[in-house]
Structures are given as C-alpha cells and as structure tokens.
C-alpha cells in the first residue's frame, strides 16, 4: 500500500480547462460558463447609486437609530438604441445590506478576488475632514464608493452572473431572506480554523505564499501612504489659508497709502483667491485617496483567497495524513506487527491480543474507511487543483486591473498637481502685476 499523499499543489493544472467551478461549495444556480466582457451585466445594465438619504428606524434591539439609505437605480441598456430609454428601476439599500451581499459573494466564490466595499468608518482623516459617518462629504464619497463596488461586481465575468447579486439590484423586498436561505453562513470558514491552517500547512502553492506576502506589504505601504498624504494635505491647507491674512492686512495698509494703495488692495484680493483655492484642490485629492483606499481593501480580498487556499491545502494534507495512518493501522492489524506506537497496540499488549474475528472486523472497517478516504482525497485533490487554477486566473485578471487602475490614479494625481501649480502661477502672476502698479 502506498502512502496516500496530498498531491503537491503546485502541479500544473493542464487538464481542466473547463469554466472555473465552484465545485467545493455549490452555488444555488447552475454552474455557467464565465461571461466574457461583452456579456457582463455591466454592459447590459446601467447601474448607479444616485442618492443618499438619512433615515431613522429601529434596530435589532428596538432602539432608535439613524442610518443612511442609498438609492440604486438600474436601467437596461438597449442594444438597438434609438434614443428610447428603458424605464428606470430603483430601490433603496443601506450599507449593512451591501455588507451582507459582499459576505455572501466572498463565501460563495472563495476563489475570486471579491471587490471591496468603501470604508465603513471614515479613516485617514485630516483636520478638515469629518470622522462622522453622517457627514455629507463622507456620505457622498461613500455613495460613489458603493456605486463603484456594484460596477466592479457587474463587470466581473463570474460574479455578474450571480442571482443573488441580480436580486440585490432589482428585488426590493425579501432579498435578505433569500440570501439567508442560501445558507452561505454555514459554509463560511471560521477565522480560527483559517488561522490554524495558515500556521500548520506544510506545502502550500508557492505562488499563494508570495501573493500573501505581497498583499501584506501592499496593505502596509498603502496605509502608510494614506496616513502621510492626510498629513501633507493638512499642512498644505495651513500654508494656503495663512496667505488669506495678507488679503486683510494689505487692505488695511492700502487705506493709509496714496500711490501704493490700489496695487496693494488688488494684490490682497488675489491672496484671498489663493487662500480659497485650496478647498477645491484638496477635495479633488480625496478622490485619489479613495482610489488608493480601494486597493488597500483589495489587499484584504487577496489575502482571503490565499487563506482559502491554505485552508484547502491543509485540509488535504490532513486527509492524506489520516489516510496514511489508517492504511498503516490496517497493515499492522493484518501483519500483526506494531510498527508505530499506538494506544491500541499498548492495550492489546497489556490486555491480550484480540480475537481473529475482532481483528477481521476491524480490518474490514478500516478498509472501508480507507476506500472512502481515498475517494475523498482524490476529490479534494481535484478541488484543490481546480481552486488553484481558477483562483490564479482571477488573480491574473485582478493584477491587470490593478496595474491599469493604479496607473490611471497616478496619472490623475499628477494632473491634479499640474493644475494646482498652474493655478498658483496664475495667482502669483496676477499679484505681481498688482505689485508692479504700486
């Protein structure tokens, strides 16, 4: 009998080129081929989160609470557009429902890097930004973030086909019950189990290990970046605003001057303009920060996929180990030799050997278990390889998306800086001209 082994998980997955299957946690709908970009829901349907509204209601503990509801509007895109638009459907959802949706997707598609939600609480704020969740600016940026989330899911080749997602967008009532009926919470892996697996797994796919390190570092560096950026914004705000004081004092000074007065006065006005300009500049920059934040949270999604792999691999290794020990036991019973220490062996030594019938029975049970075990191992191996293959496909897709998006973000950041410099040159040139007329 050979030692059953967990197949090394870094074998090339050449065989399966079927659509990524979620064979390990069967979804509610029939497995479909991944949609191509053209078939994505995003192409067929316009999705917007168009409004946010403050609501009051009663929470689970029957206490009054205030929350924000977001209006999701959808409209079918007519392929033969004649200018006639389909009617708009809309429904209201609150943040916790978005969370529920995302949890469902994460559990149901563990091999997918699931798009993250915008932050729950305002983080990385500098003094002018409010940390209050009800603050209108925060709500507005969250609205945009939620819309972005829906668009990401709708453009994902696998996720866009999910029925629960579709219902989220279109079915106002009873959606929560529908989600809960899928029983996805039961499939969720416990954190403890995942942690245990991370520590004990012996032979994970090296690519996933590397990816895990990468996502840890990415999270760390983007956090650092966002923190410092917030401080930079704070300081820059201070520099601009202090210039506003020039406006007032130039005005007062110009009152006592004859020839210099006009020049001073008008220069002072430009200083006011300069001081005021920083508000818009920094507001725009918050969008850049939000783009970075999305990828900060994406790092967590990447890690989740790695964790799932480790869990599966650990499971596999455990199953293989279990099978091996059972086979050994069987062999020992059959040959009567005790190769390894076991309690049974000790007790039989102490209390006498079993009867041949007892031994036969035991061997039979073991052989059945071994049979089962081998089948399970085989399917686990298959699952593992499927997972790795489909996960890696999505990771590659994600990498390209990330590189593209971040490049765009950097370009838009540079453009913002250029615009800021040009405004600065403009204002100071105007001021200089006023001074020259003194």
């Amino acid at each position, binding site marked *: 009998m050979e030692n059953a082994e967990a197949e090394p998980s870094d074998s090339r997955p050449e065989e399966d080129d079927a659509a990524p299957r979620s064979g390990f946690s069967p979804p509610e709908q029939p497995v479909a081929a991944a949609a191509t970009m053209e078939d994505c829901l995003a192409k067929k349907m316009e999705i917007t989160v168009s409004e946010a509204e403050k609501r009051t209601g009663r929470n689970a503990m029957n206490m009054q609470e205030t929350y924000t509801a977001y209006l999701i509007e959808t409209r079918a895109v007519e392929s033969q557009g004649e200018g006639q638009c389909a009617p708009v459907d809309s429904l209201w959802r609150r943040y916790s429902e978005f969370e529920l949706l995302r949890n469902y997707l994460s559990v149901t598609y563990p091999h997918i890097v699931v798009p993250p939600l915008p932050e729950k609480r305002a983080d990385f704020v500098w003094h002018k930004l409010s940390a209050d969740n009800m603050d209108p600016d925060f709500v507005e940026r969250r609205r945009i973030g939620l819309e972005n989330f829906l668009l990401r899911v709708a453009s994902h080749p696998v996720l866009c086909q999910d029925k629960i997602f579709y219902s989220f967008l279109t079915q106002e009532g009873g959606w929560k019950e529908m989600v809960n009926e899928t029983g996805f919470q039961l499939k969720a892996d416990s954190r403890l189990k995942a942690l245990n697996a991370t520590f004990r797994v012996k032979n994970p796919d090296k690519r996933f290990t590397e990816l895990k390190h*990468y996502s840890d*570092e*990415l999270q760390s*560096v*983007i956090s*650092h*970046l966002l923190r*410092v*950026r917030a*401080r*930079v914004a*704070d*300081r*820059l705000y*201070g*520099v601009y605003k*202090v*210039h506003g*004081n*020039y406006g007032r*004092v130039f005005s*007062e*000074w110009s009152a*006592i001057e004859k*020839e*210099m007065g006009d*020049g001073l006065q008008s*220069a002072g006005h430009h200083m006011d303009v300069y001081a005021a300009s920083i508000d818009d500049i920094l507001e725009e920059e918050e969008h850049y920060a939000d783009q970075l934040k999305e990828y900060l949270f994406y790092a967590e999604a990447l890690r989740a996929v790695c964790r799932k792999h480790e869990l599966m691999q650990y499971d596999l290794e455990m199953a293989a180990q279990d099978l091996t020990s059972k086979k050994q036991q069987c062999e020992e019973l059959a040959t009567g030799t005790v190769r390894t220490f076991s309690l049974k062996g000790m007790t039989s030594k102490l209390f006498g050997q079993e009867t041949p019938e007892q031994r036969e029975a035991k061997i039979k049970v073991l052989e059945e278990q071994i049979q089962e075990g081998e089948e399970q191992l085989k399917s686990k191996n298959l699952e593992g390889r499927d997972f790795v293959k489909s996960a890696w496909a999505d990771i590659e897709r994600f990498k390209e998306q990330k*590189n593209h998006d*971040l*490049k765009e973000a*950097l*370009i838009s*950041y*540079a*453009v913002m*800086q*250029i615009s800021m*410099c*040009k405004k*600065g*040159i403009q204002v*100071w*040139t105007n*001021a*200089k001209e006023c*001074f*020259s007329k*003194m």
Partner: protein
Amino acid sequence: MSGGAAGAPKPLPSSGPKSLREMPHPLATSSSEEMGPALTPSPDLLLPRSIADKDLSLPNGTPVDTSSPASSSSLLNRLQLDDDLDGETRDLFVTVDDPKKHVCTMETYITYRVTTKTTRAEFDLPEYSVRRRYQDFDWLRNKLEESQPTHLIPPLPEKFVVKGVVDRFSEEFVETRRKALDKFLKRITDHPVLSFNEHFNVFLTAKDLNAYKKQGMALLSKMGESVKYVTGGYKLRSRPLEFAAIGEYLDTFSLKLGTIDRIAQRIIKEQLEYLVELREYGPVYSTWGGLEVELSEPLEGVSACIGNCCTALEELSEDMTEDFLPVLREYILYSESMKNVLKKRDQVQAEYEAKLEAVALKKEDRPKVPTDVEKCQDRVECFNADLKADMERWQNNKRQDFRQLLMGMADKNIQYYEKCLTAWESIIPLLQDKPETK
C-alpha cells in the same frame, strides 16, 4: 559757472550735481582745501544746511530769509528738482561686500569691505577700499543721528542676536547682514545732505577709523554736534497737522508691517512643516515601487517628482527668510527712528513757543525779537523743512522698495510653482508609457 580752471577753489556745482564728465579731477587742483574734510561748507553749496549752520543761502549767494515760511518751501522746491536728476548724475557709489571672519584672542568678528567710487571734491581720491565691522556702522549711525538730528537716518540691521538661536557666522546670516549694511550705506549715499556728512566721509575713507573715533570732536566743525536739544520742561501743545499726519501714518504703517512680518513668519513655519511631511511622503512611493513590477517605474517617478518639489519648497522658504523678512524689519526700525525724529521736532517747536510766550509776557513795547528766540524760530523752520523733504524722499523710496520687495516675493512663489510644474509634467509621459512586452 561750470568746472573751474586749475588753481581756483574747486567750483561746486551750482545747478545740481555735475555729471562725472564735467567734474574736474580732484587732484587737478591744488587747492588748500585738499587737506581734509572741509571745515566750513562752501557758500556755494546748494543743498540745505544742517540746522547747525546759521548761514542759509541760495546757490547764487542770496541769503535766505528764514523768518518767512515761504523761503523754506522754495528751498524745498529746489530740492525736489535736484532729486529728479539723481539717477543720471550720481557722483558717489558705495558698496559693501566680501565678508571675512577675523579670529583674535579676545573675540571673533566679521569685517566687510566698503568700496567707494566718487568724483566729489570732498574726497581726496576717486576710489577707496576699507574694511569695517558692524561696530563701525553702528558708530557711524550714532554720529549721523547726533550731527544731523533733523534728518531721517536709515536703520541698521539688528545689533544683537540671540546666541545659540542664530549662528552669527553662518553664511546666511552674514549675507543677510551684508545686504542690510549695503542698503544702509546706499541710502546715506543717496541722501543729498547725509552723503556730505563728514563722519560719513571718514567712515568711507579712513584707514584707521578707531583713531578717528578717539579723537572725538577734534576735527569736526565747530558747528558740529554741540547743538543740544533741551529736553524736558517744554511740552508741545499740539503738533501741526502735517506732522501729526506723519506720526499717525508711521504708527499705522509700522503696525501693518508688524502684522505682515508675523504672517510671513507663519507662512514660512507652515511651509517647513509641510516640507517635513513631504519628505516622508515621497519615499513611500519608492517603497511601493519596490513591491511592484509593472508599476515600479511610475511609482519611482512620482517619488522623484515629490523630491524635486521638496527642493523647490526649501529654496522658497530660504529666500523668504533671507530676502523678505529682513527688509520688513528694516522698515519697522526705520519707522521707529523716524518717530523719534518727529518727537525731537516737537521739542524744538515747544522750546520756541515757550520762549516766544515768555517774551510776549514781558510786555515790552515792540522790541525786535531777541536773537535767541529768532534762533529758535530758525531751528523750527529748518527742522520742518528738512523733515518734510526727507519724508517725501522716504515715501518715494519706500514705495520703490516695497514694490521691489513684493514683486520679488511674487516672483519667488512663481518660480517655486514653475519648478514643481516642470517636475510633474515631465513624469506624465513616464506614467502613460505602456510596457513593450506583456
């Protein structure tokens, strides 16, 4: 009466300072007046005399009737005419440069080279080069205040610096001081009365200034510093409107300058704090670049760009500290000393009015006004004339100085933004660049 023949007393210009071409070379004549600083200002001297001088006469020799105010104003008019020719017909050029550190047993100090180029008769040679330290400038200023109390003496940069906070020997400090000392001498040079002051002459020419200082009053005009103003006992009832206006103006002016100084300092402080954050911000992009593959170059580019902005900002703050703030402070000091001159003028007027009252009370029948009261009246009127002339000159110079100063400030800011603009524009192509191979 233009340039005289050799042998005749050096003809001083009677209609404004002569251009260099028309001036005879001082060595061309063998006048006895060559031996040293003139003891008596020549009657041909156009420019208004110091109050110490009893003889007031117009260039053509007609004595001025100082008892009528009209004469002072005609003097004023004459002055203004001459000021207009200033620019083209300068005959005295002074520069302060070449700071050097001297280390002696007792102390360490800095000397500056004072270079003079002139065609004026008061100077034996056309060129002088001497070394002076701050003490010497301070001495000069005190002497000028004593000997020309009716005139506005330009300020010196601050005498004392807090040891430990400012490095007295740092390049920046020495350079700032040098510029201020240069400005000080240039202002005196441009002044039609002060530039002919004997102490000024000695300052520019003497090899051993200390010996001269010790000699005290020996070589000086008998009409020199002996004029003391009686302080105390005389209280001015009311300042004449025009001087009250000047006083009020100076009060508000120095107040506003003080505010501007504080604002400028605050801006520099905020900029430096902004710089600190930027210095941490840039390198984070670099760290991130180390994590990435395709994004590595764009991220490095952004990091370098921010580094360039840091350098530009540092230069801006340095410039403001070295060029902007000292000039503001100079003018605040200037205002203070001007207010003191106004007070002295009040004293002189008070004395005159008191003496006049005393005479009136004696109830003599129409005596001729006693000479000492007449002298007082002279003093008042000369003081007023000098002060008004100086105020006007000061106002003009102030306008030019501030025009230049503020345009300079605007310029520096423009340059800062231009440097940043260049940096950001140059990385756009880098960011947009698509890698060749996928």
